[in-house]
C-alpha cells in the first residue's frame, strides 16, 4: 500500500480477518450477502442446494475483514464468520 506519509501507529494497527462459513442447505439465494459485502468477498456461484437455490461463494478470501454484515443481513441464518488472526496493515 502506498502512503504519502507513514501512519505513526502502523506497527500497532492490525486488520481483522474473518473465515466465512456457509450453511448450504439453509441458503435461499437472495443475494443480500453478495450485494452488501463492503469488501466484495462473495459472488453467486453455479452451485445449488437441494432446493435449487444458487449459493454464494467466497471469491476473494483475503479481503474479508470480519465485519459481520453478511451474517447480520442473511435472513436464513445461513452464513456466519469466525474470527481469524489479525494481520498487520500491508
Amino acid at each position, binding site marked *: 500500500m502506498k502512503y504519502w506519509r507513514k501512519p505513526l501507529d502502523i506497527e500497532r494497527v492490525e486488520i481483522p480477518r474473518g473465515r466465512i*462459513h456457509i450453511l448450504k442447505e439453509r441458503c435461499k439465494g437472495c443475494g443480500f450477502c453478495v450485494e452488501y459485502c463492503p469488501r466484495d468477498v462473495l459472488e453467486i456461484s453455479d452451485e445449488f442446494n437441494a432446493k435449487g437455490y444458487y449459493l454464494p461463494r467466497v471469491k476473494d478470501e483475503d479481503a474479508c475483514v470480519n465485519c459481520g454484515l453478511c451474517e*447480520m443481513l*442473511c435472513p436464513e*441464518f445461513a452464513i*456466519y464468520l469466525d474470527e481469524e488472526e489479525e494481520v498487520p496493515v500491508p
Partner: protein
Amino acid sequence: MSNEQAVNLKPETLDPKPESHPMNYLLREDRLPHIWCPGCGIGVALSCFLKALQKSGLDLDKVAVVSGIGCTGRVAGYVKLDSFHTTHGRAIPFATGLKLANPELKVVVFSGDGDLIAIGGNHLIHAARRNVDMTVICINNFNYGMTGGQVGPTTPTGAITSTSPYGCFEHPFNIPYLAAASGAVYVARWTALHVRRLEKSILEALGKRGFSFVEVISPCPTLYGRWNKQRTGLDQMQYYHDRGVIKHGIDPKEVDIGLHGEIIEGVFVDIEKPTFLDFYSRALAESVG
C-alpha cells in the same frame, strides 16, 4: 504486502454443521430452513432481535415471545424460548396477560403490520395507552403476506395488491405516529437493510420500561414487491438504501410513507412514563396498604 501468517480461507472444503451457527442455540434448528421466501426481511429482523437479545444480558428463560397470525407470526415457532403463536391480532393482550401474571417475564410481541395494526389495532393503542411493559416489533411489508398479498392498513396509496388491483385508494396508517399518539414510550422505525441500527434500537427497546415499539420496513418480494416494480428482495433493499433517511427525534406525524417514497427512519420517541404495574402497585399501596 502479504503477511507471513497466510490464513487458509477455503470454506468450500469446510462443510459446517448447522448447529455451529452462533445463533443456533436460540433457534429451533430442527425447524430450519424457515418458511419465509427468498429475499424476505423477516429473517433479517429476527436475526437482529436475537443478536440484541444476546447482548441484552436478559435471562433467556424469562423471555417470552408472542406472535399473531401471518408470515411474521411464524417467528414464535422458530425461537428457542417460551413462545406463543396466538390468534390474529390478539398477540398484545395475550402478552399483557403474561406480563401481569408474572412481572418477571420479559415479553416481546413480534408480529406483522396487518396483525398488529388492522385487526389488532385496538389492542395496540390500549396497551400503549396503559404503558404495559412490553416490546413490540412490527414488521411492515405493506401487505398481508401469508394470505397472498392483500391490501392492508399500511399499503401506500396507489400500490397494487391482490385486493387493490387498480391501486390502493386508501390512506395508510403512519404507524410511528399511531404508536406515539397512543402513548408508547419508545418508538422507532428502521428497515431490514439498516441491520446494525435496528439491532441497537431493539436493544434499547428491550431495556426500556414501558411500551416500546419498533417498526421494521421489510421486503416482500413475492407479493407486494412483485406487483410494485420491486421484484426481488435486492430491489427493495436498494429502495431502502436510496430513499431511506435517518432523522432521529423528528415529530412522528411527519413520517408517512408514500408509494416508492421517502422512508424516514430513526428513534422518534424516547420518554419515561410510569408503567401499568407501577401505577397499579402505587395506587394499591396508598389505598390498600
